[in-house]
């Protein structure tokens, strides 16, 4: 194993997950009570609705050293507040465009719809996303200062 590969092997990304209170957070909870295995790299922040996630939060997370950010809400049409996730979809799609344009890998940022009954799906998304971010390596572009 070369040094490079070893570094990649050891790298455990920090992922911030903004989950909506009504679907995704409950979905994550279900994944927990069902004892599903998924990487512990994700740090979950509960928000009342995915529409609450200001693009600023995502950028701040990156700035504070997050390697990936996951935003998850109710499926379109299922929002507890009727339309919050539609607003989130617009905002965050634009954010992903500008991340790509400035050369920050848009793969570090993901949005997903997870309902309260989709513990399986949540575990799957987190596993896949963690793999994806691990592949990209540490995020150093927006992160300010030295890590730790």
């Amino acid at each position, binding site marked *: 194993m070369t040094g490079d590969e070893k570094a990649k092997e050891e790298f455990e990304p920090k992922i911030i997950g903004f989950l909506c209170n009504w679907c995704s957070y409950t979905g994550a909870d279900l994944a927990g009570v069902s004892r599903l295995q998924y990487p512990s790299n994700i740090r979950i922040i509960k928000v009342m609705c995915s529409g609450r996630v200001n*693009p*600023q939060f995502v*950028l*701040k997370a990156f*700035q504070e050293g997050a390697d990936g950010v996951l935003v998850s809400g109710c499926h*379109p*049409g299922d929002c507890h507040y009727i*339309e919050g996730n*539609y*607003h989130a*979809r*617009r*905002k*965050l*799609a*634009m*954010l*992903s*465009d*500008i*991340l*790509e*344009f*400035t*050369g*920050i*890998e848009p793969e570090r940022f*993901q*949005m*997903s*719809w997870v309902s309260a009954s989709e513990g399986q799906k949540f575990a799957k998304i987190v596993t896949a996303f963690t793999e994806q971010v691990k592949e990209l390596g540490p995020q150093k*572009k*927006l*992160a*300010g*200062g030295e890590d730790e």
Partner: protein
Amino acid sequence: MVDYNAMTQEIRAKAKAMLENKEVKYIIGWERGANSFISRPVIIRDAGDTDRLVWNPGCVDNLTRYLVEEMQYKPKRGEEPDLGPVGIIVKPCDSKSIVELIKENIVPRERVKIIAVTNIGTVETNKLRKVLQKIPQDKRAGIDILQDDNEFIIKYDGGELKVPRPELLANKCETCVTHNPVIHDVVIGDKIEGFEADKWADLAELESMSPEERWKFWEDQISKCVRCYACRDSCSLCYCAECVFDKEKPFTWIDKTVDVSNNMFYHLVRAMHLAGRCVDCGECERVCPVNIPIRKLNRLLLKSAKDRYKIYPGMNPEDKPMFGSYDIADPDEVV
């Protein structure tokens, strides 16, 4: 050839009539700069002063910022609020700002009288400095800048200099799609037709780069930023009473440190705040002391909004704001 003199006369006549009939409290316009060929903003309160107003390709400022200040003015204790209408002279690009401000309920339509001019382009101040090198120093007083379809004509004491349009034309005018005002009470100048649709040519180069090259480009540009916030302060749509970057309670969103991380955060957040609202008036880039191509960020979002949601801000006050509305059929590819 655009007859700037006749247009100036017409502006003065209209402004005079408005002030004499007490239709407006005052008129926001441009006057001749004291030592400069670039016109400067002026507020005319007296009908006798209207002769100070000018219109020429050096009228670069977007005056709607002053309109916002007027609308947000809080009367002092004991002072009667004066809600009378205000007159303003706008270029077509600035008229889009007014549309956006009306849409966002900052400017009530009845509180503004819009004198709009049609315009084929203004000068870029940075380019002007280079061009002026060709004119002897002692002859630079009393310069007049005129233009026709192909060139700028700089008239100075004892001669004139012809400059091809691209050498002096503002960057924003190269991609402009509104040469006629979109909202107005009075229009001055002939209707301009036959301009090309925006092809986003200025973004193409960056978009063809690899992500790493793009980051390199932006890192270089953004590391120049001194965070003077001139781009924010000159923007007619950055009107928040307390800007998020000034907020200190419950915590600060951005450090005072000037580094790539904080600067990038600032510029990305600013661009996001203007997404679907920015009308590409180009003020941010014009006032930037270190020449960061800020417009590119805004224009990328302008393009995205158009591609994704068929939204192009600043055209119709009846339109819904992009982030204030949604469509169930919006594309869902992020998931």
